[in-house]
């Protein structure tokens, strides 16, 4: 029986010729990642177990991004724990204020993940890097601690769902709409424990940013990972950033999939996930009249340069609605700088938006845009659970940057084609 891309990468990193779905393996990691929330818990475990070194200082990344710049004294203490650990053990890829970005935008940008590599991260959206043809998955802090010490992690080899893409996206429709459409179709546990593999002739029409956004939300369908076949677009992106050798894996022709979904990209419409689950999706023509108090454009899902470009294109020459606070967060310092160079920042400021330095803050209700009771937010982030962005009686509507920007102008959920 043939193997999927994910199974091939797991086999190679477990030192095995082949693996099958359900098999438990111990696999070698090419990168172990943590952030300012998950790393302190891992550091406790690491210290308690009495470890005195990390397995490879070049293969550890710690990014301070969730509550950074420090939101309060306790958050500052957590950041300090991370900083001290990174210095003490010589962690090569440590990103603090001034250099940091939202981790899942930063690692691809810095070339820290390449096709065929295996990455574990103590953050659920670590599945993002599957966009580059890597096996990458979210784990907890104890897994991170074990990974820091041993460079390995245990996995149950996942079965797979295959998404066969064809066609190309309509104007003002982007990767976010594709993944919201898929989650609406299969549900928040539709890919539970499984790998979501994307390929097909439609792949070539998707930008790397589209793919990163789609892979990012594999976890919102319960997936273990999302993974894209590698093509010219991937190689061009990686070629500018990665100098070490890497391996491109392709699925076997007789690889086993539990289900194959055909996705015609040209048929996908702007899609919004209503509270309180990412599967509660409606296409833009079905949303009705939903007045909003806030818009957030940013996050590991949609804080990349193409997201900023889409928001700028729609906001140009407009002003956001009265009483609709609009918070724009470029995901890395590079994107922040590019937004200034390309004139996006001026467009945002002219439109009455605020532009923040990179942070995960509002997405998880940390800070920088908390919602009061009864307030509604259209957000390009990834979760709309009860209380996710603030008060348990606030509401989050997940959408693309195009829809979010249009909604900011209208003061209610709006179709970007009607602005």
């Amino acid at each position, binding site marked *: 029986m043939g193997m999927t891309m994910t199974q091939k990468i797991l086999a190679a990193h477990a030192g095995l010729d082949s693996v099958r779905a359900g098999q438990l393996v111990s696999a070698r990691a090419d990168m172990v990642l943590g952030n300012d929330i998950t790393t302190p818990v891992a550091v406790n475990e690491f210290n308690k177990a009495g470890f005195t070194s990390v397995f490879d200082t070049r293969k550890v990344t710690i990014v301070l991004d969730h*509550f950074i710049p420090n939101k309060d004294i306790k958050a500052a203490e957590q950041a300090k724990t991370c900083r001290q650990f990174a210095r003490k053990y010589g962690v090569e890829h440590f990103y603090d204020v001034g250099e940091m970005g939202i981790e899942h935008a930063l690692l691809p940008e810095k070339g820290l993940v390449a096709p065929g590599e295996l990455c574990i991260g103590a*953050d659920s959206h670590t599945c993002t890097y599957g966009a580059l043809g890597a096996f990458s998955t979210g784990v*907890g802090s104890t897994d991170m601690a074990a990974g820091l010490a041993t460079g390995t992690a245990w996995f149950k080899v996942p079965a797979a769902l295959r998404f066969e893409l064809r066609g190309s996206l309509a104007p003002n429709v982007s990767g976010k709409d594709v993944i919201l459409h898929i989650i609406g179709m299969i549900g928040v546990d539709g890919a539970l424990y499984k790998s979501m593999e994307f390929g097909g002739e439609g792949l070539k029409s998707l930008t790397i940013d589209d793919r990163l956004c789609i892979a990012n939300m594999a976890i919102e369908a319960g997936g273990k990972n999302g993974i894209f076949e590698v093509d010219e677009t991937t190689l061009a992106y990686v070629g500018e950033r990665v100098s070490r050798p890497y391996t491109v894996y392709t699925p076997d022709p007789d690889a086993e999939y539990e289900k194959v979904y055909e996705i015609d990209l040209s048929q996908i419409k702007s899609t919004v996930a209503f509270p309180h689950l990412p599967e509660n999706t409606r296409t833009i023509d079905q949303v009705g009249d939903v007045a909003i108090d806030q818009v957030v454009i940013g996050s590991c899902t949609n804080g990349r340069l193409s997201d900023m470009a889409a928001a700028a294109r729609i906001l140009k020459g407009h002003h956001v609605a009265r009483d609709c606070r609009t918070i724009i967060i470029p995901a890395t310092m590079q994107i922040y700088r590019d937004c200034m160079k390309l004139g996006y920042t001026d467009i945002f400021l002219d439109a009455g938006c605020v532009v923040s330095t990179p942070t995960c803050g509002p997405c998880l209700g940390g800070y920088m845009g908390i919602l009061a009771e009864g307030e509604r937010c259209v957000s390009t982030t990834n979760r709309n659970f009860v209380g996710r962005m603030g008060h348990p009686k606030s509401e989050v509507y997940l959408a693309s940057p195009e829809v979010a920007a249009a909604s900011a102008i209208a003061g209610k959920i709006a179709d970007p084609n009607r602005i």
Partner: protein
Amino acid sequence: MNAKGTVFKYGDNIDTDVIIPARYLNTPDHKELAAHCMEDIDASFIKTMKPGDIIVGGFNFGCGSSREHAPIAIKASGVSCVIAKTFARIFYRNSINIGLAILECPEASDRIRAGDEVAVDFDTGLIENLTRGERYQAEPFPPFIKEIINHNGLMNALAAGKGKA
């Protein structure tokens, strides 16, 4: 290993944001996390639960964020076991890694009601509903995972040289 306690029952897709809201993630302190366990879905939980009590959920328990703070908050609150139809995968591995007992059993999840007295035998996977006089069989863990649980977590298992598949 066994557990026995009163059941707190919740529905499908109980996410880690309601288990421990992110506004409390500015500390890794187990007791502080436990003090806010389930706060946004059941503010009375932490006030009324007793050590040893059991949480029963539906499908996809623990979905969302990878925050280990979620199983830590549950374990540190004194909950002895979580039973669900299915668990989200990161929550599942985090629970095993920190030594929080969890069992997948759709029948138990359907039949057990809030307030039932339930006893669990982790070695056999047998769940006994003492209130209703019913028994349900959960899938026992594979030996590799049982090894981690028996060591009360991954780091202890690693220290004992048992953390490799």
